[in-house]
Each structure stands twice: as C-alpha cells, then as structure tokens.
C-alpha cells in the first residue's frame, strides 16, 4: 500500500431483524418462500393501505443502541425517502432521517497492528427493506416483494477506520453483538447482514476528507476486505496519474476482484425526505429503555474480560469461548457444575468444539450436554478414570447419551488403583523386557516412558498412571 496516503473508511451496515412479521404489516419474514406469497396491501404499496409499526422492531433497535453505547432518542419520527425503482412499490421507502432512534454510539475495536481504537457510530435508524429483482431474460425483470417491508436497522459509522483490517474488525464486532442480542441471525449469504463501505484517501496530514466512493454488493468479510483494498489502490492510481476521484457508487465484482462504476444513479440521490404522515411519532420512555437494558445479555467483550479475571483463563481461551453466545452459555453451564474453569475450557474447546466441527453440528445439537460433560470431569478429578480413558467415555456418551457413571460401570473402565494388581502387571512387564531393564539400569532413564506405556497397555489403560510410575521406579531400582 502506498504510504503517501491515509485511507479513510466509514461503513453503513444493514441489519435484518429476526422478527416474525414485517415492520409495518403482519406478513411473514421467512426466507426462501415462493415469490410474492408473503405480501399484503401494505407491503405491495396498494393505495389506501396504512402501515402500523411492529413494537418488537423498536425494542430491537433500543437493544442494538444500548449494546453499541448509543443514546436512545426520547422522540423519533419516520420519514419517506423518495425514489423510483421497481423493487420499491410505493415509490418511497419508509425510513428515518431527522430524529433517528439512536445516535452517538461507539465500539472499541482491536487489531493486531494498531491495538485498541474507538470507532464512532453516528446513528442507528429503523427502515423497511425493498423487494428483490430477479433478472430472468433480456427483455424483462421479475419482481418478488416478499422481502419488501422486512425490518432493518441501518447502522452508520463515523469515517473513523483507517484500513481494511480495521473495517473488518469493526464489522465482526458489530456482527457478533447483533447475533448475541438475538436481533439478527447474522447470515451474510442470505443478506441478513449487509455492508456498504465509503472509501476515500487523502495525503497524510490533510484535514479535509477526500472524495469518497461508495462500495456496494459486499456480502462476505473476505469480499469487503478485497473490495476496500482494491478501491484504495484504484484511487491512488487515479490521483497519481493526475486525475480526480469522482463521487459515485461502485459495485464489487467478486469474480474479477475489482470495483465497477454504477453509472446513472447520481440524480437518484435527491431523495426529498419528509415526515411520513401515515406514522405517528415514536416516544421511548426511560422506563422502557431501563426495562430493555435489564434484559440485555452479557456481551462478548464483557465475557472476554470476566473469563480472564474471574476464571483465570488465558486470553485465547476466553476469546474462543466468548465468541459465540451458545458456546459461552454451554461453557458457563459446565463451570457451574464443575468448578475448575481451565479444565472445562480445555474440554469444551478441544473435545466438544472439535467433535462438533468434525460432524458439522452446532452446539445446540451437541449430544453431550453440560451435565454429561461435567460428569466425566468429576470422574477424572476423583481418579475413577484416567484422562485417556475419559476420551473413550466421552465418545461413548456422544453415541449413547448415557452418563459417565453408567458407561464406566458397563464397560468396566474404572481405573485400577489397587497396588497389588498394578504390582503384578509391573512384575510381568519387567520379566518380559529383560533387555530394556538392563539398559535402564545401565542409566538410560528415558526408558521409563516405555515401561509405563507397557503397563498401561497391559491394563487396557485402566492402571492409574501415577501409581504405575511409582511402582516401576521402585521395582527397577531394586
């Protein structure tokens, strides 16, 4: 990257909310249904139809606002954003312009190179989505209005990011928060979390912002990074060649890894916003805000810190376990039953997440419940089974759903701690390996590992390894 220029990035994120019904009517928001099967006079924009605001949408907006340190406006209004496009049946989109529901928020992001940094959130507002255009042949386009009127939050950041990596760090954190809150399913492929990036460059030290290009069609974190990096290089080339960057909308072309100008949309930016007379002003009381605040879940950043401070986990463990709300809740359930957090962490990150990944399951589908897992850990702790046998028990629980004690009983996996039994195995092993015994006694102490291995094998893994070790040492030094 050319070091003569500073990169400036602001992001607009559209978060599709997980309400059952649309923002202004009772049609379903379910994805992937037959085209136009989820429409009514309101979302079709038929004359005379009146929108009525879904209370849950307001509640989700308040939640997202609180979780991003925003101020919730006591009074906000809806506005009409006027433009013509076939996926917008009314000829205007109901959105918020003046007086949005949330303003002045921020998120702290962290990147490896630049450390911690605060990114401002200008505003969060509520709006309806447009329909979908399907380009079916060379003469016509088909319009599906199932998505029209689906509730969205638009989260607008300040132009505070200075690299593609910072932009990604901000987006990942925002994504994690809205999914944690349960207000968005986070599915980027289905368009539940969409991002537009405003990108500009300026010579270092210059105060005023350069002319920006707005990048669209960014539906994965990877594409967003690629598109921003391409666009920065393109703008540097334009300026270095003596040209000027034009303010325009550019579409990311993932197949070729480039951005392309979308011509002819310039005039459409004159939206002539005005308050929508069909919708009453919205008033949010402090009581309502407090009530929503009291139901906020603990957020990932807070969990990350608590896992390190309260549980003494390494930062890496805390990061993995807090990244996904369901995983965090699973882990906390295990710790509440078996109060050795590091051991719980090892098992959840190792066995549980490993097995889930291998079988392509989510933690909600995990057949080994926190109770069942804690059951294994207790039996290791009280020396009923060794750590090695515990893996076998874990696999059996995964398949059968039985608890650890049942499996240890049925399969006879209880660890042998009877010194007489182990002593006789030790004697057998020593008798069977005279050469190694001689070498060991000659000073090759590394062979202890071999002997322990033999004893464990002979006992089918059930001998207590510590006792085996002790007894071997004793016998071999005789």
């Amino acid at each position, binding site marked *: 990257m050319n070091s003569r220029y500073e990169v400036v990035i602001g992001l607009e994120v559209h978060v599709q909310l997980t309400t059952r019904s649309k923002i202004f009517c009772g049609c379903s928001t379910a994805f992937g249904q037959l085209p136009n099967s989820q429409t009514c006079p309101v979302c079709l924009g038929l004359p005379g139809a009146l929108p*009525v*605001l879904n209370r849950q949408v307001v509640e989700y907006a308040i939640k997202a606002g609180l979780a991003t340190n925003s101020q919730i406006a006591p009074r906000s209004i809806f506005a009409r954003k006027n433009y013509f*496009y076939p996926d917008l049946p009314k000829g205007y989109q109901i959105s918020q312009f003046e007086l949005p529901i949330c303003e002045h928020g921020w998120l702290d992001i962290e990147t490896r190179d630049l450390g911690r940094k605060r990114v401002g959130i200008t505003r969060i507002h509520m709006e309806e989505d447009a329909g979908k255009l399907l380009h079916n042949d060379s003469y016509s386009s088909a319009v599906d209005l199932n998505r029209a009127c689906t509730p969205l939050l638009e989260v607008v950041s300040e132009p505070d990011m200075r690299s593609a990596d910072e932009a990604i760090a901000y987006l990942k954190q925002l994504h994690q928060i809205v999914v944690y809150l349960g207000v968005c399913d986070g599915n980027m492929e289905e368009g539940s979390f969409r991002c537009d990036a405003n990108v500009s460059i300026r010579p270092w030290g210059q105060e005023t912002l350069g002319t920006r290009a707005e990048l669209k069609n960014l539906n994965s974190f990877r594409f967003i990074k690629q598109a921003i990096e391409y666009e920065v290089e393109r703008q540097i080339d334009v300026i270095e060649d003596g040209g000027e960057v034009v303010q325009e909308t550019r579409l990311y072309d993932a197949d070729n890894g480039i951005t392309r100008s979308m011509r002819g949309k310039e005039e459409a930016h004159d939206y002539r916003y005005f308050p929508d007379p069909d919708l009453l002003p919205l008033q949010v009381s402090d009581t309502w805000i407090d009530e929503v605040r009291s139901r906020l879940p603990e957020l990932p950043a807070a969990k990350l810190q608590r896992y390190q401070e309260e549980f003494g986990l390494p930062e890496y463990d805390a990061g993995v376990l807090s990244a996904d709300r369901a995983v965090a809740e699973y882990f906390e359930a295990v710790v509440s039953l078996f109060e050795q957090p590091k051991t719980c962490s090892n098992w959840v990150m190792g066995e549980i997440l490993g097995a889930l990944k291998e079988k392509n399951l989510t933690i909600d589908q995990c057949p080994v419940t926190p109770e069942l897992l804690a059951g294994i850990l207790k039996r290791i702790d009280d020396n009923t089974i060794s750590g090695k046998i515990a893996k076998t028990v874990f696999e059996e629980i995964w398949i059968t759903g039985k608890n650890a004690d049942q499996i240890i009983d049925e399969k006879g996996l209880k660890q042998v701690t009877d010194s007489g039994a182990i002593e006789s195995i030790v004697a057998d092993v020593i008798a069977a390996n005279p050469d190694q015994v001689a070498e060991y006694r000659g000073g090759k102490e590394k062979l202890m590992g071999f002997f322990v291995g033999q004893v464990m094998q002979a006992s089918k893994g059930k001998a207590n390894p510590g006792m085996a070790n002790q007894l071997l040492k004793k016998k071999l030094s005789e």
Partner: protein
Amino acid sequence: MKISQEDVAHVARLARLSLEAQELETLTSQIDAILGYVDKLNELDTEHVEPMAHAVPMSNAFRDDELNPSLGLDRAMQNAPLSGDGCFMVPKVIE
C-alpha cells in the same frame, strides 16, 4: 421569483413527470405563488416551537409481532399489468 424553471423541471424529472414548455411555465408561476404564501409563515417567530411531525397530537401506535394471513399469490397478482412465474414483470432493469 422564488423558484426557477430549472428547479421545477428537476423536481418533475425526479417525479417522472413529462412537462410541455407551456406547462412548465404555468407550474413555475403557480408554485412560486404557493411558496410566496408559505413565506408568510416565516413572519411568525417559531424560535421556541418544536417542529411538528404529525397533525394529530398522538404517538406510539404499535402492533404486536404476530402474523396475519397474506393476500395469496393470485390476489396479489390480480392488478399486475404483466406477471409471470408468480412475479410482477417490469421492463428490464440494468444494474
């Protein structure tokens, strides 16, 4: 004049209205008169008056997040000038 013919032509274009030269002239003078009338309001001191967003002194009309039956495909398509495969058909839109 409070508004130019260019302004009116621009707004007409945004609203997809096609105006003859004569219409443009008539409309410009009419809109100019309306703006003159609106200007009268500026004589009032509104320094301490909160802007009104709605004519009725009410707020917070909500519905619960519950499903209502949709129209159904046939009825949804009933007024479409052109339809196919359960969709409204429009002239090709070039992205």
